[in-house]
């Protein structure tokens, strides 16, 4: 009888140990979620559409933003244990919502120790050269030029008020050479939510600040588009993580 109880107790103990081990193994290996937030601002000011209240970066007058959107693509998380590469990762970031935030949600990220987040602004050469719909790429959407030119990577449209004239502002940037890869180190453990700030003003701040009155539209001129691409490469800023509670 005594022996029986002892046997049952040991058996129970083994079960409990297996359970605890299993649970911690599951916790360590079960997929996790990741939310990436991109929050748009214009310099020190919040983004408000269709309001003439932002200073011309390199000249006189104030400008308004009617539309602003761009492609974020090929998101990857780098890890010594193996990178996580998102599939069909073409995300059209738009901010015409109440909080001017664009959010990308992943639900099945392997639970690893990640050291960096990488993504690109624009559309990679391969995807830019086909009319196959993948992710947010759609050859009939507003970001598509004609199929032999490819996609606009970034679209900015608005107006510059100077004197009594409203100059139309059209900045469309595409072309493979303007695809820009970005990398952001992960500080400590990767949090469930990672925040970025998108400063639209930085699009016009580079080696020189763009005077919108002089150059109110950029589309196909290779030098001008490269100027904007060099600038937008720096427009996404990682927001410092709050330490986990």
């Amino acid at each position: 009888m005594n022996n029986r109880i002892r046997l049952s107790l040991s058996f129970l103990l083994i079960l409990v140990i297996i359970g605890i081990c299993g649970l911690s193994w599951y916790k360590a290996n079960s997929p996790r979620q990741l939310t990436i937030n991109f929050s748009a601002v214009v310099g020190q000011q919040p983004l408000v559409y269709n309001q003439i209240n932002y200073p011309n970066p390199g000249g006189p007058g104030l400008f308004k933003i009617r539309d602003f959107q761009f492609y974020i693509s090929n998101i990857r998380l780098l890890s010594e244990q193996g990178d996580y590469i998102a599939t069909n990762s073409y995300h059209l970031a738009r901010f015409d919502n109440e909080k001017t935030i664009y959010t990308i949600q992943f639900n099945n990220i392997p639970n690893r120790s990640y050291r960096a987040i990488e993504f690109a602004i624009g559309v990679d050469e391969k995807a830019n050269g086909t009319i196959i719909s993948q992710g947010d790429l759609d050859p009939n959407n507003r970001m598509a030029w004609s199929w032999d030119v490819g996609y606009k990577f970034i679209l900015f449209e608005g107006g510059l008020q100077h004197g009594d004239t409203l100059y139309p502002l059209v900045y469309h940037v595409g072309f493979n050479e303007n695809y820009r890869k970005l990398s952001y180190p992960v500080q400590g453990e990767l949090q469930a939510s990672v925040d970025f700030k998108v400063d639209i003003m930085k699009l016009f701040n580079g080696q020189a600040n763009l005077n919108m009155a002089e150059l109110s539209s950029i589309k196909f001129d290779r030098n001008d588009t490269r100027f904007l691409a060099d600038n937008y490469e720096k427009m996404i800023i990682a927001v410092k993580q709050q330490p986990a509670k």
Partner: protein
Amino acid sequence: MKIKQACYLLLAVTLMIVTAEYYQSKPRPTALNGFSAPFVYGQFTTPQNNPLTNEAVALGRRLFYDPLLSGNNKLACSHCHQQKLAFTDGMKNSMGVSLKPLSFNTPSLVNLMWGPQHFFWDGRVNSLEEQALLPIINVDEMDQNLDELIDELKAVEQYQRLFSKAYGAINKQNIAKALSAFQRTLISANSKYDQFLAGTIKLTDEEEFGRKLFVAHPDVKASLRGGNCIDCHSQFLTSGFNTKYDGFTNNGLDNEEQLLPGLQAVTGKPEHKGLFKVPSLRNIALTAPYMHDGRFNTLAQVMDHYNEGIKLSSTLSPLIVEANNIVNGNKKKPSLNLSMEEKKAIVAFLHTLTDEQFIINTKFSDPFLQEIKIE
């Protein structure tokens, strides 16, 4: 042994009765035969509660052509949406039972699963199902009381059969669903342009010249001439864009004082004043007159508008103001500054969007006429 056999028999009979009841009470519509959508149009969705079925489309087609749907039983949907004119009526203003010219031009019904999913010129409804009943009850259009319509339909044996096969009950929702299902099948994708895209034919030099201008936003600095059409009309669908209200624009028809509310009536936003839905240009050569109010009779007039007739207003698209084919254009008098030859070429390209099969396809035509022929 005998009891056991009797039990089995009883069970089998009960099962048969139950199955028969089940099949009788619940419609079993079948997935639409031979349905295909062109690759270049991209993805599309149909509402979960209204899939494309043979039964729904057959019912919708009959309703679409049945004058029973109007109050005086004289006008069907097809009165304003005539197949031979790519489902338009050739009139400047739509005109229904009241014989009053209405303030808008009848839009073509084509490729409705793509492009803006907001319907009417001002985008005031967000699905075809929501749209379908509104012209029926509008006093100037079909002026029909829906309860009366349901009674009238219930009195027709064929409708009892068609409804029960497609949806079940004869009610408002199912009338709307059937009309929507039929309209979703109105796909035009066999124009000269489509054949060119598929690589089976070549465009003439003038058409190809026009196509290049159609898809180009002009950039003087990069020595690129363009008609700037593609900034609003997507390259394959030639409709407005599908996301949110991207497919609505103020294309400079009126100055500030004359600007109609347009999309602003729906969203309440001042930046949407004077914006109207960008239509598909498929079969555009057949759908004159043009614009939301039918103000232009010919494509040449439309080209003249975009080339030198733009009127300034606060919500005018910056893409229109900015597009110019000469250096230092006058911003206060926007003009594309295309040559006569270029304008003509764009019109020639627009003619390649005509789909001769679409306008005679018997799947879309009046089922009552076919019945007469068979008799």
